[in-house]
């Protein structure tokens, strides 16, 4: 499958299930007459570099990787699609009920548990939005959980660590993505008597399939055609969609990344 017709997709192996997901999607693409293969990277930094060098055709990128690709290509990169769950992502500020934190300003002088340094939803954007709301972050004591660096928060491990720290009174407040927060509550893993949500950030968008502008038009079109042919009511597709955390693939949109771009500029990270 090294011929020029085959779309080579890059994905980051943040969990063994990634192999199952892409083996399954490759099979679906083949059924659609679209030859596709995938290469797994251990981190998004490497994946972005290999995309920019043209070693892979498409990269399944986190928001952090996506905005990097946009910047490095002068916004010329092609965005091919995203999950329904990637739209209107939010982060949550969760507090211990006995912390005395009733407003965002109350965070000052308290301990705030945050996720990995490269997690958009558990660290970068919640801190950015808190600062935008007037919280003086220099007066907030951060308790960071820098697990799985390079995976951009994909594993969700650092968000679980934040919630654990809250339950164990090691922090007064914490930040996590909305999906982890509501799913942990729905699963009965949260003690509502002790911790609760205080605030929700504005929305932002999450992952994106990125390609270079030089990608052959036929590949672009066939990739989108096969991707959007996946359906929730098809048992084979549904299994893959559940693993990847979506119900339907949606067309791309760029409007949801402005806050992240701004946050990275402000912190001088990009």
């Amino acid at each position, binding site marked *: 499958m090294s011929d020029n017709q085959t779309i080579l997709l890059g994905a980051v192996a943040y969990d063994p299930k990634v192999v199952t997901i892409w083996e399954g999607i490759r099979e679906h693409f083949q059924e659609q007459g679209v030859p596709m293969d995938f290469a797994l990277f251990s981190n998004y930094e490497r994946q972005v570099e290999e995309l920019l060098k043209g070693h892979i055709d498409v990269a399944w990128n986190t928001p952090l990787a996506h905005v990097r690709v946009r910047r490095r290509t002068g916004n010329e990169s092609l965005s091919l699609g995203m999950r329904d769950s990637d739209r209107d992502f939010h982060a949550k500020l969760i507090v211990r009920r006995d912390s005395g934190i009733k407003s965002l300003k109350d965070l000052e002088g308290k301990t705030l548990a945050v996720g990995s340094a490269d997690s958009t939803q558990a660290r970068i954007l919640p801190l950015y939005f808190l600062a935008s709301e007037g919280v003086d972050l220099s007066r907030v004591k951060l308790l960071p959980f820098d697990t799985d660096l390079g995976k951009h928060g994909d594993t969700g491990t650092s968000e679980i660590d934040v919630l654990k720290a809250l339950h164990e009174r090691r922090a007064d407040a914490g930040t996590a993505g909305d999906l982890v927060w*509501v799913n942990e509550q729905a699963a*009965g893993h*949260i003690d509502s008597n002790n911790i*609760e949500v205080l605030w929700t950030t504005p929305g932002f968008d999450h992952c994106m399939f990125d390609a270079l502008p030089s990608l052959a038009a036929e590949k672009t079109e066939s990739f989108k055609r096969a991707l959007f042919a996946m359906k929730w009511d*098809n*048992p084979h597709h549904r299994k893959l969609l559940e693993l990847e955390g979506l119900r339907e693939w949606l067309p791309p949109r760029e409007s949801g990344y402005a806050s992240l771009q701004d946050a990275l500029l402000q912190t001088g990270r990009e």
Partner: protein
Amino acid sequence: MSAELAVIAVDCGALPIGGGLLALLRPALNELEAGGMLAVLSSAPTVREDLPSWCRAERHEYLGVETIADGIDRHLIARGEFSVPPATDETRGRLEPRDGKLTASDVLAIAPLPEIGDPATGFAPRGAKVEPAGPAYPFTLNERTHVAPPEIAKLYDQAVANQWDATSDIPWHKVEPLPFPAARALAQVMTFLAENELSALYVPARFIPRIHPVYAEVAMFLATQLADEARHIDVFLKRARLCGVGLGISSVTTSRSLLSLMQTEDFTEAAFLLSVLGEGTFLDLLSFIERHAPDQPTAELVRRAKNDESRHVHFGLAHVRYGLMNDPGLYDRLEAAVRKRAASLHGISGVPAPVHDALTILAAGSTEPHAVARGYEAFRELLETMHTSRIRRLEHAGFTPQQAVTISELHTPNFM
């Protein structure tokens, strides 16, 4: 936002998302069609933060919130398209006891058997609201006409009501020692019965995993049949071992005959060969043994086994008759199955010799030559009776008299 459009409202009090609210919210949403609206009343401020996120996670549409009274929010949600389908009317029948009882027939009356089983409903009980896009199960008996005759619920109810206990329902203490030749004959007969009943346990068991669970009553009936056979194996071997002379001979004739039964791949053909022809023939055999039983416990256990076998024959007949009614081509296939089996048993010309001899001695009641002559005559009459009964049963199933004679003559000399 207009709350007047909401069809259902659910009052969640101060419950948070992670503290019980979903147990009220989700069932209420399941009552709605996709796009249907639900009003959620809540006095918990955290719900303002969490409900929109939960809706996003579950792909319901969060339409907004308004305060309707001091500290009371009314949130409005439109049900999304990615969730379980709503209940249909046919799944809502209410079961009513009759004379304090609930039978499988009562259940069948409000939850009828569908014509076709959908492989994607898996083990979902008939009438369950099945979430779409489940995996397809490898059931192969998916058509009512090939699996589930209308009598099935009644037969299941009878089977359940007539279970008995091989340990204590037989007056074992009344068994007396027999003279050696009679003991050897009885041990042989019981060995033969147990061997055949083992095949009657294994053959239907092979088909249970192939039956689509919407026809669960069939699988459940077969489960009672398996329990019956297990009990028969148990009771026959106990009686054999009470003879104190060891078990009898297992002959190659029996072994070859039962293997050919095991190798039948089609459910209806197997039901025909096993239940209609095999167990049907066994009814006459068991009557014969009961009549000539050396003592009351033996007569009792054989009588009980015969009652059970009679149900199996009824099911076999009902199954085959229902199939024939809906598929006239089945006559030829069943006759072909009998011919094929007869061909595979070519060279076997008679009842296994040890069984032949043992039944003769059993009927004789002694080894005195005049008695043996009577026993031999009784055995010959048994074969005649078996042939006549088979013909009657086959005609009852819908075969022509000529077909019935041919099929009966081709039946295995092993009885089963």
